[in-house]
Each structure stands twice: as structure tokens, then as C-alpha cells.
């Protein structure tokens, strides 16, 4: 049974919704900036859910007042990596650490092959299961 038709990656906020438009992304960034959270743009081509640390596209942006600057960075990143996953993360520093408060995908490859189950036979008759992204069979940079 396929629960996630089209193999869309569902990580972070809004991932079950249709793609966010630029206006919607701007509104979300605006929300983050109103809370004085720092916003950063990150990209990767390894969609495994345990791949927590994506590559940073420039430094996180502190002390911004208006979403236009961040949208400009997002569009720069889209231009540079049109076939990568790109996410926007907002960091809340009120507890003394920059902890992620929002995170959502703003760009994804045109074709997402999805994940397969890998079964590993271990001692006795035990089986270990893990998931594996078909895209990562290819080397980095050639995956999508």
C-alpha cells in the first residue's frame, strides 16, 4: 500500500501541503522575524530523515527586519541548486542556544524516487529493518 503517493519527502512543517508559494513563504518568514528568530537557508541531496545537518547556504541571517532579504537568498539557492532539497530554518535563541523553531522545505527535486526498506538478517532469525533512499545510490551531486 502506498501511503505517500508520488514519494514526496515529508519533513518539517507544511510538507503534506502543496508547495508553498513565494507569498506564503514570505508570510512564514515574517512570522519568524516577528519573534526575532534568526533564519537560515540550507540544502542537501540526501533526503534520509536522519540526515539532520544540511549544508548551509551562507550564514544564518541575524537582525533582519524584512523577509525580502531571505527570499532573495532562497531564490539564489534555488538558482544554484535547482534539483536539491532546500529548507528554511528559524532559530530561537531565547534559551541561550539557537534551537530550531521552524523548519520547512521550499524546494525539492523534480523527481523524488523515495525510500525502500532494507532488511538485514542478524543473529538467530532476527531481521533488522532500515530505510534507504534510492537517490543516494548515486554519488553526491548526481543524485537528482
Amino acid at each position, binding site marked *: 500500500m502506498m501511503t505517500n503517493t508520488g514519494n514526496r519527502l515529508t519533513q518539517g512543517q507544511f510538507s503534506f501541503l502543496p508547495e508553498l508559494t513565494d507569498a506564503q513563504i514570505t508570510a512564514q518568514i515574517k512570522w519568524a522575524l516577528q519573534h526575532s528568530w534568526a533564519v537560515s537557508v540550507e540544502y542537501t541531496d540526501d533526503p534520509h530523515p536522519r540526515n539532520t545537518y544540511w549544508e548551509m547556504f551562507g*550564514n544564518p*541571517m541575524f537582525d*533582519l527586519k524584512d523577509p*525580502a532579504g531571505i527570499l532573495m537568498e532562497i531564490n539564489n539557492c534555488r538558482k544554484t541548486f535547482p534539483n536539491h532539497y532546500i529548507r528554511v530554518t528559524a532559530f530561537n535563541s531565547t534559551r541561550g542556544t539557537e534551537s530550531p523553531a521552524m523548519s520547512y522545505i521550499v524546494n525539492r527535486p523534480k523527481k523524488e524516487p523515495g525510500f525502500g526498506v532494507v532488511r538485514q538478517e542478524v543473529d538467530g532469525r532476527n531481521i533488522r529493518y532500515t530505510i534507504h533512499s534510492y537517490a543516494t545510490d548515486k554519488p553526491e551531486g548526481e543524485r537528482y
Partner: protein
Amino acid sequence: MSEAQSNIIADTDKVDLEAEFKSSNIQEVLDKLDRELIGLVPVKTRIREIAALLLVDRLRKQFALTSETPTLHMCFTGNPGTGKTTVAMRMGEILKRLGYVREGHLVTVTRDDLVGQYIGHTAPKTKEVIKKAMGGVLFIDEAYYLYKPENERDYGQESIEILLQVMENNRDDLVVILAGYKDKMDRFFQSNPGMRSRIAHHIDFPDYRPEELLAIAKLMLAAQNYHFSADAEKAFTEYLTLRMKMEHFSNARSVRNALDRARLRQANRLFGRRGRPLTKDDLMTLEAEDVLASRVFSEGRLDRDPG
């Protein structure tokens, strides 16, 4: 888009400029400008014109008369202390009231904040500043330092090119205001013609007249809950005429420094006659002797001059 279209009204309809003017609270901003900034007639005229243009533009939009967003990048030239920074700070608020910028904050930078120290350092630095200023006003003080003709490998040029690009492409997102002394800015524009053509408003800040400086002094004192006695006012007028002839006179800034020194002397005077009770008025009044003690009178030079 659909929302914009639904707002379009019929060609025969009439719009009320007066009502639009009232609803925008622009008068309040302009009044505040008149009240708090003395003199500066060319500046105020230009701000009034910009306000009128943006207002009329808003009405034109109701008839779906599209026109390009006007460029509001500005260049303030003038001698030291003529109020360039003060006006720039007001500009953010004014443009926000007029709905031209979204946030209306002011980001003040100089060459250090824009230009990096090694290859590849300038572009990210400049872009970071630009991103911070988006939605508001980017104020580049002493802008002529950006371009150093004597060093052809100076990174300032790179910064200027990025700025030019942003000034052209992100016109809706930020307003760039350059400021500097007139002669140096003229030289700067001569070597960067692209910059000159992208700046629509070149505003020259005139020097203040003595009576304007006195009015400024009174305004500054009132803001700090001080006032001149009648004699002190006369003495300060005299002080201004003497001071204006001396070198390094920087208009309102010199006035502020002179007042700060007068406050020191007032405090010292009050301290000297301690034992007697002081009234509230004593604490607020600057007397003639506080002003006359300045070395400008006795020796014809500044207090801070050595020797």
C-alpha cells in the same frame, strides 16, 4: 492580482485627494518635521514633493493607471552638522507612513561595514548589510570613502557594483541614501556615473543661519529640560557669531557641543554656591556667565584646543 483588479474604479468616478491625504497621516509627519527641524527649506520641499507624488500615485492606482514605482534613492550633501543623518532617520518613518517601505527602519553604515579586507570578503559583507536594510532605509554615511581612486585594486568598487545592482533590482525593497560633503561626493559621482544616474534625488543641505542655530539651541535645551535666561540668550547669539567665523565650525553639532560645555559650567556654578537652597528654576536655567566663560570669547579659540 484579483484583489487589485477588484479595487479598480470606473473611469468616470472621482477620487478625493483630500480624504486620502487625511487618512495617510502625512500632515502629522510633515508638521513634526517642521516643528523639530529648523530651516532646511530645500529638504522639506523635496520631502513634500515626494509625499505628494506617492499620494497621487496611490490615487492613480485606483484607476489602474500603472506607472513604475518611483526610485527614491537619495544623496544628501552638505557641510558637517547640517542634519543629514537626522533627516535620514526621519526618512524611514516618512516613507513608511507613505507606504513606500514596509518596515521603515534605518541601517546606518560606513565603508567599514561594506568593504571587506581580502578577496571574496566584500560581496558577502555588502549583501549582509543590504539584507538587514531591506524593508527600510540604508544610510551610507561618508559614501565617498567607498571609492578610492588612488588604489585601483581597492575592494570598494566591488561593493559599489553590488549596491548598484540592488538599487536597480530591489527598488521596492529598500531605499539607499548616500551622504557626504559636497565636493567629495561630486568627485565620487564623477568616477561612478552609474551611481549618479541611479539616484533620483540629490538634496543639498544648506548651512544654518545664526538665528536658525539659536532656534536649534533652544530646541536642544528644551529637550533636556534646560532653558536660557534672557542674558544667556544674548550671550549665546554673540557666541554663535564669533564661533561661526572660526575654523571647524560644524553647524548644529558645534551648537550641541557648546551647550554641553555650558551645562558643565552651570553645574560647576551651582556647586560653587552650595549651602544655599536651589529652586527647580535654578537647576534648569543656563545663565549668561555659563556661556561667556567659553574661551571663544576670551582667546578666540575653542575650549578643547590644547594650550
